[in-house]
């Protein structure tokens, strides 16, 4: 293990933790611009987190220990995931521990704890949100796995850094299969991060909310961790997308400090563009009824499987 690898790993973790709320703020800002509203400050998510961390926590009497530990588990899972995803460099000491399939499992662990904690209190909203989240999750996961399988088949490995390195270094080609899976991945990203066609992150309307319903009983530092974790989740998903579909600019091979330094502004550019794109998608699409969500995710699964089949047939 060379020092540069440890530096890359540390830098990635710090960048994920620090930039995730900023990314969320940027998406919200773009949405506000597109909807002709006055945009909130980019630093609003940080201020919210700071405010929440300084408050006293209130916990329901009926809460079990699970309710207390769930925010730490969810947050921890997201931090570990951020360590596995090659957002700046592909030589990461952490990644020997988990490949892309384990990464999906890690995200699923976070989801299970989130849902269990939401049901723990026994309020109607929490249970409702948890059930909806699980419905979305069980449909989105196979699609995400299929997306990863296509990239794995192309690179003949399931290790995410190796996939990124392979895709970034080979000569440019047209991959219909990757194009299909990119669409599938975008749909999964929208569904998994409670973005607009499936869930509206800005609403507390009881009939439609999914993610907010689950975090309803949390307060203070627990809520802060939950919010931070969901910002990290969005950041992680964006970085998985970059690793699979826009791998250029990540420092590969025996990463030099220069390549690592160059990858930081490139990541910032990618995130800026992706955030704006996400805001556009959210603005032009309307929220689907909850019962239409399976149709939406079936489309994602269809795209991913079509990508797989096209790859098997056309070899690309």
């Amino acid at each position, binding site marked *: 293990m060379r020092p540069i690898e440890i530096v890359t790993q540390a830098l990635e973790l710090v960048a994920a933790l620090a930039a995730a709320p900023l990314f969320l703020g940027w998406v919200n800002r773009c949405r506000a611009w597109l909807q002709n509203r006055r945009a909130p400050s980019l630093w609003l998510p940080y201020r919210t987190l700071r405010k929440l961390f300084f408050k006293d926590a209130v916990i329901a009497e009926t809460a079990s220990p699970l309710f207390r530990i769930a925010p730490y588990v969810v947050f921890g899972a997201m931090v570990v995931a951020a360590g596995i995803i090659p957002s700046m460099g592909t030589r990461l000491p952490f990644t020997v521990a988990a490949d892309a399939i384990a990464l999906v499992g890690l995200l699923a662990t976070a989801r299970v704890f989130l849902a269990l904690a939401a049901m723990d209190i026994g309020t109607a909203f929490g249970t409702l949100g948890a059930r909806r989240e699980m419905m979305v999750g069980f449909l989105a996961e196979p699609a995400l796995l299929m997306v990863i399988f296509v990239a794995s088949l192309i690179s003949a490995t399931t290790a995410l850094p190796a996939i990124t390195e392979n895709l970034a270094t*080979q000569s440019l080609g047209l991959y219909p299969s990757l194009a299909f899976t990119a669409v599938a991945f975008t749909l999964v990203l929208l569904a998994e991060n409670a973005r607009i066609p499936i869930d509206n992150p800005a609403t507390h309307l009881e009939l439609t909310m999914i993610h907010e319903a689950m975090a309803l009983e949390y307060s203070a530092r627990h809520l802060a961790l939950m919010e931070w974790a969901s910002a990290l989740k969005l950041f992680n998903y964006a970085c998985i997308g970059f690793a699979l579909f826009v791998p250029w600019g990540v420092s590969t091979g025996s990463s030099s400090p220069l390549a690592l330094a160059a990858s930081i502004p490139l990541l910032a550019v990618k995130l800026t563009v992706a955030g704006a794109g996400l805001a556009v998608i959210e603005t032009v699409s309307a929220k689907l009824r909850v019962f239409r969500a399976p149709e939406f995710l079936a489309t994602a699964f269809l795209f991913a499987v079509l990508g797989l089949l096209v790859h098997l*047939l056309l070899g690309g």
Partner: protein
Amino acid sequence: MPGTPLDLQLLNLCAALLLLLSFAMLAQRRVVTLVNLLATQGALLFIATLLLAWRTGEHHLYLSAFLTLALKVVFLPWLLHRLIRRLQVYWDTEPLLNIPGTMLIGLLVVVFSFGLAQPISALASTATRNAIGIAVAVVLLSFVTMITRRKAMSQVVGFLSMENGLFFGAMSATYGMPMIVEFGVALDVLVAVLVLGIFFFQIREQFDSLDLHHLESLRERSAQADSQTAALKEH
């Protein structure tokens, strides 16, 4: 797939998009959009044929490309749009299966047809032989589209998309059919659509609807009518 020439990559992309369009047709319930999808499919076919003609230097492919453009991108969609306006059919009724179910069946059909096309691709010597599987899949998916729809209009669109699939299959297996066959098929399709257009009006006049479901009860109705006349005679 680095290493393959760019035009072949583009052809493969066209093939993949054709497959995608077939799925879009399978999911689409608005008839107007269905016709637009058909026109897009024709346009993709036109591009693919041009690319193939340029790649192989076969002159008759240029001719069939422009025949595709004139017939499948311009004329037939125009005709269908006109029919839709005059018949006022904008929506198909609820399909026989829900959409995710249809999609899953479609995926199975694609797997089946890829398996089916494997021996043919192994025998073919063209550069585009990999796309034969996609052509078979497009044909079978159009079949599924026709089976799951009730309205005559959507069935005709499914029929035309099936013809597109056959055309693409012939192209990728043997660089196109002989010109005379291609002209014959084009004429057939043209006449079929014109005749079906007349049929639409007849069907609607008879049943006040374009739902082909009504056609199934023809015999029962005539039997009923027979018994009625018999009863009248007895009186």
